[in-house]
């Protein structure tokens, strides 16, 4: 891209329209001078005009030369553009969404709301309501419009906006290092959080304890009995009781650390009290749990999907070229024909590929565990068995079909 930037700089410097304007100006000046001398001496008109013909022609020649240079510069830049960003045909055939704009609109509204773009979201909801999108599948693209006949579930946008504005309000308080609203929320939802195996409420309370413990020089709160060592102690007495069953060890640790309050830096508890990343960490955990309780993923799905798409496209493009060349169709509509490598952060589910059939297991063809502990897909198992009996392909174990059990991974 750097070389393209240089080409562009050349274009801007050497091949722009400014000179042609200057040369037009010169012609204009000559015309005005000629007019002046005709006004001065009407009898000289024919002479003045005859004398003007050549300069006018030259003037326009000059303008045309200027334009030629611009054109040449643009062509050079165009070649550099082709070289730096070679044209690649996009696989429009894979557009499976053209027939379902209502669902895309819903996904966009939810994205804007979760990103806190409430103003844009409300403009968009108005515009989309006024002008509902028309499905526009292109010839050759899959058409799923019949599926849209069942109405798109309505988006309770106001409700969602209220929830997300609450989330942003709490996040803002966290940014201002005020934990109370977050702790309150976690306490109100402690049952659901516990079910998720989240210890958010305790993490927040623990940070509050540490925050008080570090005292006015760090937290900037008033230097009184509610701050510093005594404040932390009071806080612990008031709030840690409810965590004792689950987090006894952590609480003991915090309590012991108090003994080191004078030289915390050299104590074994230093790390507990190092809160450099703690605020960001609790903000992230809070966002994740908040979204989870709404049944939504922590990161915007639209962001993840668009990013995954950009990562997948080069591979799909290669495949698309092959398919096009061989004039074949993709063999299956239920599964992509190639494997696409994604970053670890984009893998969310357990994947089980049957070692016999090499197929992924599904609800219809679930993984089955044999008494020996090995797992294959149900269809493979049925193919392996002879008269209800079969031998495990991975160990000497023999068993009967009824002993194999479906498992959920």
């Amino acid at each position, binding site marked *: 891209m750097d070389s393209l930037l240089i080409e562009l700089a050349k274009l801007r410097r050497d091949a722009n329209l400014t000179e042609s304007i200057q040369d037009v100006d010169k012609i204009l000046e000559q*015309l005005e001078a000629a007019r002046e001398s005709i006004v001065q001496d009407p009898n000289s008109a024919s002479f003045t005009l005859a004398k003007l013909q050549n300069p006018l022609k030259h003037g326009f020649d000059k303008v045309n030369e200027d334009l030629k240079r611009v054109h040449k510069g643009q062509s050079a830049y165009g070649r550099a553009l082709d070289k730096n960003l070679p044209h690649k045909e996009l696989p429009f055939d894979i557009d499976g969404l053209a027939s379902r704009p209502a669902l895309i609109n819903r996904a966009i509204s939810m994205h804007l709301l979760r990103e806190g773009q409430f103003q844009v979201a409300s403009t968009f909801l108005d515009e989309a309501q006024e002008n509902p999108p028309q499905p526009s599948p292109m010839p050759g693209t899959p058409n799923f419009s019949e599926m849209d006949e069942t109405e798109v579930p309505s988006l309770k946008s106001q409700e969602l906006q209220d929830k997300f504005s609450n989330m942003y309000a709490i996040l803002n308080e966290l940014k201002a290092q005020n934990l109370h609203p977050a702790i309150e929320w976690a306490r109100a939802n402690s049952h659901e959080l*516990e079910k998720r195996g989240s210890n958010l409420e305790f993490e927040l309370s623990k940070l509050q304890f540490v925050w008080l413990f570090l005292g006015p020089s760090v937290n900037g709160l008033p230097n009184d009995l509610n701050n510093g060592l005594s404040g932390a102690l009071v806080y612990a007495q008031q709030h840690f009781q409810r965590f004792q069953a689950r987090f006894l060890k952590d609480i003991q640790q915090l309590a012991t650390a108090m003994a080191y309050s004078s030289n915390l830096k050299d104590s074994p508890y230093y790390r507990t009290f190092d809160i450099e990343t703690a605020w960001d960490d609790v903000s992230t955990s809070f966002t994740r749990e908040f979204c989870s309780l709404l049944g939504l993923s922590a990161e915007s799905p639209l962001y993840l999907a668009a990013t995954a798409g950009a990562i997948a496209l080069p591979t799909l493009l290669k495949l698309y070229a092959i398919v096009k060349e061989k004039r074949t169709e993709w063999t299956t509509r239920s599964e992509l024909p190639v494997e696409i490598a994604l970053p670890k952060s984009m893998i969310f589910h357990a994947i089980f590929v049957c070692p016999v059939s090499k197929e992924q297991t599904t609800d219809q063809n679930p993984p089955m565990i044999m008494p020996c*502990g090995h797992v294959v897909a149900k269809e493979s198992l049925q193919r392996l068995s002879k008269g209800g009996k079969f031998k495990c392909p991975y160990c000497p174990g023999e068993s009967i079909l009824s002993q194999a059990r479906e498992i959920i991974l």
Partner: protein
Amino acid sequence: MADHITSKLNPDSHLILDQPLLRLPFELLRKNFKVAHLNVEKESTALKSTLRETANASLNANASPDDVLKNVDSMIARMRGLKRKLTACSEEENRLHQQSQSRIRHLGELYGMQSLDDVKYEEWSRTRLDRLLVDYLLRYGYKESAAELAQEKGIGELVDVETFVQMSRISESLRGGRVTEALAWCNENKKDLRRMESKLEFTLRFQQYIEMIRTQDEQKLLNAISHAKKYLLPFKDTFPGEIQQVYGLLAFPPGVGPDPYAELYSDSRWSDLSNLFMHTHNSLLSLPPVPLLHIALSAGLSALKTPSCHSLHTPSSTASICPICSTELNDLARPLPYAHHTNSHVDNDLKLLPNGCAYGKGRLEEYARKAGLETGWYKDLRSGEVYRCEEATTVYIT
């Protein structure tokens, strides 16, 4: 064996969705140049001949000094007009240069990133999503939302609000039954349309013809015939089928004709025209025919989708919620293919609970600890059922 996890970032192949970003300002730059060139050509021819004629007339004493002066004044006025037009082109040129520079810089940032896990990549990719969203909104005519989002995110240089606003102004006028704006656009882009062998202008003229016939007014019918002679018949070799209909339509007033003719009177032709215009407009400017968001999402939804995303089994309650399982995209992803995998990836050290659910030992232990269970007990991550550790058996994944 293909690896299913990667964080490798190859900027050259990664920039597939971003081609129009640099392509469009370049096409506009060329178009702008053509406008400038055309004006210079027109004015120079006119000026040279006016000057020659005026000089001759003056020499032969055919023109009064007043007439001569009037002609000189008109030449000066034309020249000032040319200067004004060129100045406008120059301003547009400058804007496009500036825009290209910002866009090249934006794409260039990708070359400074180490991997897909780079925080800078995340930021970049978010901007890309915003660009794709603005593009989508503009293509569906949601101008206000698009402009607000672009403003809010400060990406004005990276999106093409003006181009699309102009486009939707014309496409909306077509939907409303007006061809004037679209015909003016055809006139501006005459040469390119001819090179593309575009059918747009012919179709617009045909529609004008249909509208005249529709009135069944005698004078209008006569006008229709001369309109056809002027604009449609010259294309009898290019579009023989349509020319047949042009003749035939005279015999079938609205409401009586058999199907191909009845259809010509249909209102839906206006939205077809509008679509044809947008399609022509986009290919003229090297813009993709569909919103790039569709392409990115189609690929991305499939790459992320697993058989579990639309499974009857609920996912374990502790896992982070998958984007495809999340409400936003779940229905959208339903008909799309799921990702292909050649290798299993499951938790290490899988333990099977008596209820048929299997989890990694580490996750079971952590969940039990967080749930405050005594050691020696596991709790199911989905149902919350509690089991003794001895009841869990080992699962071997090969």
